[in-house]
């Protein structure tokens, strides 16, 4: 369902004035890259050109470091971003590489299992990859073997929850209010009328995904 | 107008008047003899005390005026109007009494001491700073008679006590058990060591020309040519070293907001912070006062003597020397405020470089030229243009040459 060939974007310039050196966009360069990726039959499947400056390739997760090194030497020096997308069947790690000379972007996708996500780290190819890998670990729990200090960067260190996984539900302020009223009403009804009214103050605001990692109540994320 | 004699006359008139009244009311017993004897013994001490208090009050009023000028001028240089606190209310005045509001409020603030700090040094630090600054404030005369103490070597005494403050800064910075204040204290010590000697050397040139350490004599020698004309290089060295001594912006490292939060004052709150801030401005006043005495002819005024007889028969004579002195101090201070608005802050190693490798050689070179100048011209007083030319031209050429070689970079 992914990667259908995008139609030509009207706004996208192609041969206008001040065009990059290779006439008609980096077409020649893309063919060369496709050729090299084609040779690695076992590891790279479905490599295609999806736009004047966009390329796509699916890579087997265990060969990711060699492919990245090969592409960097081919001209993709800039690791623009390294992120994950949590599909229900699998967890895709996305590498977005940009080439300064030939002005073209390639998107590598490595599909790993959502249960215990593990993949080799590409910090040996780009030192800057460590930052994106730490964030991916922080948000998705993907363990990058070989990353120098794989620690949480945005969330407090003692958290044990990976917030951007689809399994993690967040409870908005409205649901919390409704839930607290429901509990109060239940407590008031349950307490015998003669006994003193339950004076227990409103339960402290229960935040979905609290640090102790208690499973969030199934409030559902839809506001 | 000799302050001491006037005050002595005033005090004795007051005390004798009271005692006379009491005796008139029939209290002639041995108690009155004891009081008269005590007054006889303490007469000199009481007068000196009154004079010192008067000089301190004038000095502190000048400090308050300078603080107000600094806040307003630095705001004006950035298109901003600072405090507008007036008697009628907030925003309805010129902000002159803003400092009193700050002081009273700081009086009320809770005085916190960090738990693991060295409590007694922490408390004593700012008071040593203010104490040593006030001691020098008393030693600087405002005109011939108008001075608490006119020592034979007043300049030596002033410079000695003036150089004591960085120890207080270092002590309080170290005792506050906080990394920022520790670094602030260290920097203040480094800065003092690197800029103290050029300061004294630049003063040595002036003292040689004047022939005496007494501040009043230095001013009298300058009544025709101000020493800034004869010693331009010494003035440059003096101003740069003095800015680093009183820790103002270009050499503001002990209290650098950017990297050390508030430098050595970070842990002070309430009255101790008020002391620390006030000490900064007292030292600013002293720096400018000594600068004016040494280079801008102290209280000599370009206005020729004149006398005006007032409508009610009194007679008002001559330019008031104290007024001219204070106006010059304020002008020099405004120059410092302008420097603060225009320049950034230097690094610690750059201060040391400037102190040792730029200011010190310049001061030595200026001293050598002064000696040469004095050896040739028997009496500089008589021929200022010749003396000036004989000195200024080589100094200017050499400084330009140094500048061309990029020596200051």
């Amino acid at each position, binding site marked *: 369902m992914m990667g259908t060939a995008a139609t030509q974007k009207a706004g996208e310039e192609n041969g206008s004035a001040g065009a990059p050196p290779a006439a008609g966009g980096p077409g020649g360069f893309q063919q060369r890259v496709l050729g090299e990726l084609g040779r690695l039959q076992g590891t790279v499947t479905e490599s295609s050109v999806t736009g004047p400056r966009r390329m796509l390739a699916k890579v087997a997760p265990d060969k990711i470091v060699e492919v990245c090194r090969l592409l960097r030497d081919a001209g993709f020096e800039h690791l623009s971003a390294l992120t994950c997308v949590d599909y229900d069947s699998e967890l895709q790690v996305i590498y977005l590489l940009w080439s300064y000379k030939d002005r073209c972007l390639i998107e590598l996708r490595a599909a790993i299992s959502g249960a215990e996500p593990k993949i080799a780290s590409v910090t040996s190819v780009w030192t800057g990859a460590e930052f994106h890998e730490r964030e991916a670990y922080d948000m998705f729990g993907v363990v990058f073997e070989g990353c120098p200090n794989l620690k949480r960067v945005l*969330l*407090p260190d003692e958290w044990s929850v990976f*917030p951007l996984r689809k399994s*993690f539900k*967040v*409870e*908005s*302020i*409205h649901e919390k209010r409704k839930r607290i009223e429901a509990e109060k009403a239940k407590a008031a009804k349950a307490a015998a009328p003669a006994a003193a009214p339950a004076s227990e103050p409103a339960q402290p605001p229960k*935040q*979905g*995904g609290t640090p102790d990692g208690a499973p969030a109540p199934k409030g559902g994320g839809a*506001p | 107008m000799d302050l001491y004699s006037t005050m002595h006359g005033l005090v004795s008139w007051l005390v004798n008047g009271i005692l006379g009244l009491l005796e008139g009311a029939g209290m002639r017993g041995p108690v009155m003899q004891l009081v008269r004897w005590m007054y006889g013994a303490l007469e000199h001490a009481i007068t000196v005390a009154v004079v010192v208090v008067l000089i301190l009050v004038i000095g502190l009023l000048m400090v308050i005026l300078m603080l107000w000028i600094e*806040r307003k001028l630095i*705001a004006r240089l*950035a*298109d*901003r*109007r*600072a*405090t*507008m*606190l007036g008697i009628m209310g*907030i*925003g309805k005045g010129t902000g002159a009494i*803003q400092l*009193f*509001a*700050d*002081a*009273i*409020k*700081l009086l*009320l*603030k*809770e*005085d*916190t*001491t*960090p*738990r*693991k*700090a*060295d*409590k*007694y040094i922490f408390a004593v630090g700012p008071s040593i700073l203010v104490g040593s600054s006030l001691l020098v404030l008393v030693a600087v005369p405002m005109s011939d008679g108008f001075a608490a103490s006119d020592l034979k070597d007043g300049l030596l005494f002033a410079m000695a006590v003036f150089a004591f403050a960085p120890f207080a800064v270092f002590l309080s910075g170290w005792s506050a*058990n*906080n*990394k*920022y204040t*520790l670094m602030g204290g260290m920097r203040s010590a480094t800065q003092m060591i690197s800029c103290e000697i050029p300061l004294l050397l630049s003063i040595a040139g002036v003292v040689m020309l004047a022939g005496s350490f007494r501040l009043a004599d230095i001013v009298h020698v300058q009544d025709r040519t101000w020493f800034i004309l004869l010693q331009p290089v010494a003035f440059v060295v003096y101003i740069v070293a003095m800015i680093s001594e009183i820790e103002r912006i270009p050499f503001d490292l002990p209290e650098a*907001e950017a990297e050390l*939060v*508030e430098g050595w004052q*970070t*842990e*002070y*709150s*309430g009255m101790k*912070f008020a002391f620390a801030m006030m000490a900064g401005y007292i030292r600013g006043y002293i720096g400018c006062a000594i600068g004016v005495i040494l280079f801008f002819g102290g209280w000599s005024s370009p206005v020729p003597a004149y006398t005006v007889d007032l409508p009610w028969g009194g007679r008002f004579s001559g330019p008031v020397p104290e007024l001219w002195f204070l106006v010059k101090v304020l002008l020099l201070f405004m120059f410092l405020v302008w420097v603060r608005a225009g320049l950034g802050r230097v690094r610690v190693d750059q201060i040391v470089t400037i102190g040792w490798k730029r200011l010190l050689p310049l001061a030595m070179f200026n001293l050598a030229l002064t000696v040469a100048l004095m050896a040739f011209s028997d009496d500089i007083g008589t021929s200022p243009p010749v003396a000036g030319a004989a000195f200024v031209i080589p100094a200017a050429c050499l400084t330009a040459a140094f500048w061309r070689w990029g020596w200051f970079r």
Partner: protein
Amino acid sequence: MGSEGEGRDAGARPDGAAPDERPGARDGPAEPGEECVPPGPSVILASLDELVDGLVGLVDWGIGLVSVKPLVNRIARPIFGWSQRASIFALHSGLACCAMEMGVVGMPRLDSERLGVAWFSSPRRCDLFLVNGWITKKTRPVLMTLYEQMPEPKWVIAMGECAISGGPWHDSYNVIFGADELLPVDIYIPGCPPRPEALLDALWKLQKKIAREGTRSGLRLG
């Protein structure tokens, strides 16, 4: 003589950072094992404290005896109130977008110093704490340390929706909904972000509030 603020946990960092939890990191210069307070002649000086406290008690008792205290209070109260109103020192601490609008208030066009509000960066000398952004769980200890380090008569202004009730981040897992869950807030400024003129108006209202309620002396003279 003010009490020493003994109870205050002032050993934390003045710059408001959370205490350093890295292994082996120690607060203060790292001489191994040497207690920072030099062993002064505590026997004599301790009695100095008692001497000073005794004197203060004596003077207090004397004033109370002569019952001139209410007279002194009636004269001093308006003067202290005026001085606190006329010179509020605000802490220069910006959290998020409202910090940009707070910055503008200190700049030439809307000069907050005309009201006597100066911006300082050390919490030790500020009496106004502006919460101007969303508070996350990681910022909570920082804000609490900063608030604790400020000397006693202090006020808090919650600026912007995020400081009032979490604002647009009402379903975020990391945001605390409102500053009043952490600090006693005196003035709320609605708006996301409120215009700088709104902050000036809040400063003016704070001055009126001080005038109305009078300032509290931080010296705890008893």
